């Protein structure tokens, strides 16, 4: 009997592992599950990417993005694009769990609920980063603006974390309602306005080469928002998925 000792070994390994080790392992498993599913279907990333590029195209015509306008609105256009594409991704990633009954499976698994939240959030964050990593160079080429600025990347990192922290929590709420797809942006946008304002202002600051002293308040605000909302989401996620 080959499988039995193996199972026994596995059981002992989990039993002896510390709480933190267990947490990291389940976190890793959830993230890997999302990435593997996406790698096979590619429906989420392709939808987010095509949508993001369409938004940029629409902005091109709506705002007449000539050289002068570009200097002032680039950050705004980028963040609106990320926010819209992000909503699409958040909705899809949670709806997939709900529709195929995966969420129930996840909840039944003997892992900490917060591991599920952080797993989903980090998965969403990775998708968002991939979209941003493709949109930024495309935007740079299309409008010949140099977006490879370490400060800008820092703002994008902080902004995305805040956006995804709240977004993951709200999307797991929205999928459990009757009006799911419509509801997420309505729930999410009024709450992430501080992130969007700070991110747009911070990005504009770095793109226009302002003094770091003028940008610092926005960075502080982003960090504060990230810390507060990650903590709150971590605390209330249990109540959102509880059945």
């Amino acid at each position, binding site marked *: 009997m080959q499988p039995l000792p193996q199972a026994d070994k596995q059981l002992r390994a989990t039993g002896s592992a510390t709480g933190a080790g267990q947490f990291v392992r389940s976190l890793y498993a959830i993230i890997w599950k999302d990435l593997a599913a996406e790698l096979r279907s590619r429906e989420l990333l392709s939808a987010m990417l095509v949508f993001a590029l369409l938004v940029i195209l629409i902005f091109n015509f709506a705002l007449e993005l000539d050289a002068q306008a570009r200097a002032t609105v680039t950050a705004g256009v980028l963040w609106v694009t990320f926010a819209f594409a992000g909503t699409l991704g958040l909705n899809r990633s949670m709806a997939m769990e709900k529709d195929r009954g995966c969420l129930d499976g996840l909840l039944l698994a003997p892992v900490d609920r917060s591991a599920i939240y952080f797993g989903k959030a980090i998965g969403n964050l990775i998708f968002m980063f991939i979209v941003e990593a493709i949109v930024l160079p495309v935007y740079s080429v299309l409008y010949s603006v140099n977006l490879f600025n370490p400060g800008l990347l820092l703002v994008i990192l902080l902004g995305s974390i805040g956006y995804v922290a709240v977004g993951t929590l709200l999307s797991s709420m929205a999928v*459990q309602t*009757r009006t799911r797809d419509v509801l997420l942006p*309505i729930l999410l946008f009024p709450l*992430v306005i501080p992130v969007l304002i700070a991110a747009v202002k911070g990005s504009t600051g770095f793109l226009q080469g302002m003094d770091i002293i003028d940008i610092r308040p926005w960075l502080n605000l982003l960090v504060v*928002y990230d810390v507060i909302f990650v903590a709150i989401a971590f605390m209330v996620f249990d109540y*959102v998925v509880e059945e």
Partner: protein
Amino acid sequence: METKPRMLVILDVVTILLFATAVGMVFFYAPLEAVMGQVQRVFYFHVANAWVGMLGFMVAAIAGIAFLRKGDHKWDIVGLAAVEISLVFFFTAIVSGSIWARGSWGTWWTWDPRLTTAAICELVYAAYLMLRQGIEDPDRRARFGAVYAILGFISVPLTFMSIRIFRTIHPVVIGSGAAAAEGSFDMTPKMLQTFMFSLFTFSFIFADLLWHRIRLGKLAAKAESLRLKTLQ
């Protein structure tokens, strides 16, 4: 069917009397402001409305925390009641502020931190109601409502701070105002008394309406459970 509690009847009467007095004070007791004229009288109820709005959102967040901790549905009824009342009062504050702004800034609306935050605040709590509408299961509705009320109450001050980093033109009557504020004024003692009395009165109105709305919520819950019993 339970009858209306006596205390509530008393509170109704006291509130109505206080409100009549407050209206009288605003129009006849408070002196005319020298620069802005009559339109300044909006200020007393404008701030009082905004105060009730903020109070209600705070009550909703506290009720949300209490519900998540205790799981008692009476907290859900309190939270919903507070949000519904505050939405109306906050909207009145925005409209009355707009009327005042037309008179003293010469425009109905500017993208000032307080105005923008107020608008976003309304949207947050409108979203709260839409969220509740989309859920049939009462237990889940209560949990999600509690979570969203807490999130909203944390996000709104951050929104205010984020917009505040721009310069503001909204006058700060209590505490020190920004140098750029337009339409600020010093209150005479009579004005201050009227102002404080309005705040006091509106707190009573809030308590009274909250009590009525909680009572309504409890009766609705009872009617719902009776209906379910008959259907079974």
